[in-house]
């Protein structure tokens, strides 16, 4: 299996030949940032197109197919337009917070995007509390949404933001706990370690019952965390026009729009990482030739493929289920998911202690 750390080491040694160490690191940072931004926007555009196509398929339609082959350029055209659309500044709003909010949202999703392990050795930084950092970053997003709702000076956005605040704070517990279950299983918070621990079998298989429970809860909570249907209350179109971003136009709205889709990728990426082995190929113990064939598929494709497959499931949710009501949403979390999650954590610890897992 090819290792991308060889490539990065080669670039590093190439740069240090001409530049002092600090300058080389700076140049590398810049390159990484550019790659990241590019990957971020391309992936988001792809996701917008993907969701539109998937949704069309569910609804017996064709979906975008006029702009570019299979409509592939549709979301690029949309982004061009959004970029040059007027930014409306409103009277009676908190101008600074109003402008800050979309940046916070996109910053949060970009930070969590950055720590995802893309492939074998293709990770920006692998530090010992990687998964903790990821959760922490993704929580900044809710701040942006609250600010957006508050600073717009609009009743719809305010209700949307309050809903979002209640929802995110609640469901973060579930996400945290289900990830904690898997961290307990892996015995490490480092993303690299977690992935490597799944070399001989993904956690969803080796951790059997508690892992499956944790996965289901994670998927529900993750869908809620990204504000997607059936948990799309903060922007419930039929109730609050466009929720917390009602008053945003142009690229500010574009940020919310991109971040929404990227969060979808991040949630499914983390699910892939915690339960489906990250970039680790599918291995079956003992089937050596099969495992070798699997190894031929590049690790990047494994990771993105898993993430997209999981996103497909989340998109499927959105286009199937009706929306929950705010009290039902909160009671689902506090009355069902949280107790189950806590019990599951105990179960997982028992599994580990008594060695009930594979």
């Amino acid at each position, binding site marked *: 299996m090819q290792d991308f750390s060889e490539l990065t080491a080669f670039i590093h040694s190439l740069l240090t030949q001409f530049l002092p160490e600090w300058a080389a690191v700076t140049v590398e940072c810049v390159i990484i940032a550019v790659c990241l931004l590019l990957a971020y926007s391309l992936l988001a555009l792809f996701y917008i197109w993907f969701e539109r196509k998937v949704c069309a398929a569910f609804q017996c339609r064709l979906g975008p197919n006029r702009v570019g082959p299979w409509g592939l350029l*549709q979301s690029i055209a949309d982004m061009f337009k959004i970029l040059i659309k007027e930014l409306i500044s409103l009277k009676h709003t908190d101008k600074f917070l109003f402008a800050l909010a979309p940046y916070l949202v996109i910053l949060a999703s970009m930070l969590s995007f950055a720590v995802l392990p893309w492939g074998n050795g293709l990770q920006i930084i692998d530090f010992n509390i990687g998964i903790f950092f990821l959760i922490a970053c993704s929580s900044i997003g809710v701040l942006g949404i609250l600010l957006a709702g508050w600073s717009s000076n609009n009743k719809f956005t305010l209700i949307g933001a309050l809903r979002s605040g209640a929802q995110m704070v609640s469901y973060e517990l579930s996400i945290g706990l289900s990830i904690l279950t898997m961290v307990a299983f892996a015995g490490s918070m480092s993303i690299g370690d977690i992935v490597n621990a799944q070399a001989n079998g993904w956690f969803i298989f080796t951790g059997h019952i508690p892992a499956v429970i944790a996965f289901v809860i994670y998927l529900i909570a993750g869908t809620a965390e990204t504000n997607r249907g059936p948990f799309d209350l903060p922007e419930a179109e039929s109730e609050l026009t466009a929720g917390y971003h009602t008053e945003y136009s142009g690229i500010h709205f574009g940020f919310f729009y991109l971040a929404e889709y990227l969060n979808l990728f991040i949630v499914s990426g983390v699910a892939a990482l915690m339960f489906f082995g990250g970039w680790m190929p599918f291995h079956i113990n003992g089937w050596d030739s099969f495992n070798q064939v699997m190894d031929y598929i590049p690790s990047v494709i494994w990771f993105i493929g898993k993430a997209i497959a999981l996103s497909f499931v989340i998109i499927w949710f959105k286009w199937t289920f009706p929306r929950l009501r705010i009290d039902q949403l909160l009671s689902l979390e506090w009355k069902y998911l949280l107790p189950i999650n806590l019990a599951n954590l105990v179960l997982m610890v028992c599994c580990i202690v008594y060695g009930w897992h594979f």
Partner: protein
Amino acid sequence: MPYDAWKDNEYIEKLVKELRDSGTNVIIGSLDHLINWGRSNSIWPLTFATSCCGIEFVSLGAARFDMARFGWEVARASPRQADFIMVAGTIVHRMAPVLRRLYDQLAEPKYVIACGGCAISGGPFRKSYHVAMGIEDIIPVDVFVPGCPPRPEAMIYGIMQLSRKIKVEKFFGGVNRQEKQEKFLESHPIEGIDDNK
């Protein structure tokens, strides 16, 4: 629909000719081209419907006619994020200021399609005491789609014509549509709002 028939629009041809005569800069011209490509291929409607035509607009989104093919299915409920209003249905006295406000809330560039007889001229309700005789003296209109209600095919044709119109616009320099719009806003002022700012 054959291409020649679709291209048969004197208004736009005249517009293109005027633009050609005035000449364009190569760089700015190609940049314009790129921007217009983006704009004309991504026109998001505002969810706005007052009566019958609105239901045909819903049919337009459904599988039979599927406006998603052209990328128009992203109907935004918030006017800040939409590109055009499809005025689908009668506009009455009480609704007129609301429509005007919605138009003002749209972010530039913004377009209006008057859809159906009522929005064009008052339609079957011309004799009424409470119906605006066409929306042209409330907001500036770009495309008219006649019918009562227009068939979804006609609506597709109308939006395609709008798309064509956007394609020949100029982003830098004299934006031909903008002038028309400014003239309109000058002749229809609202107290307390300065449109030229």
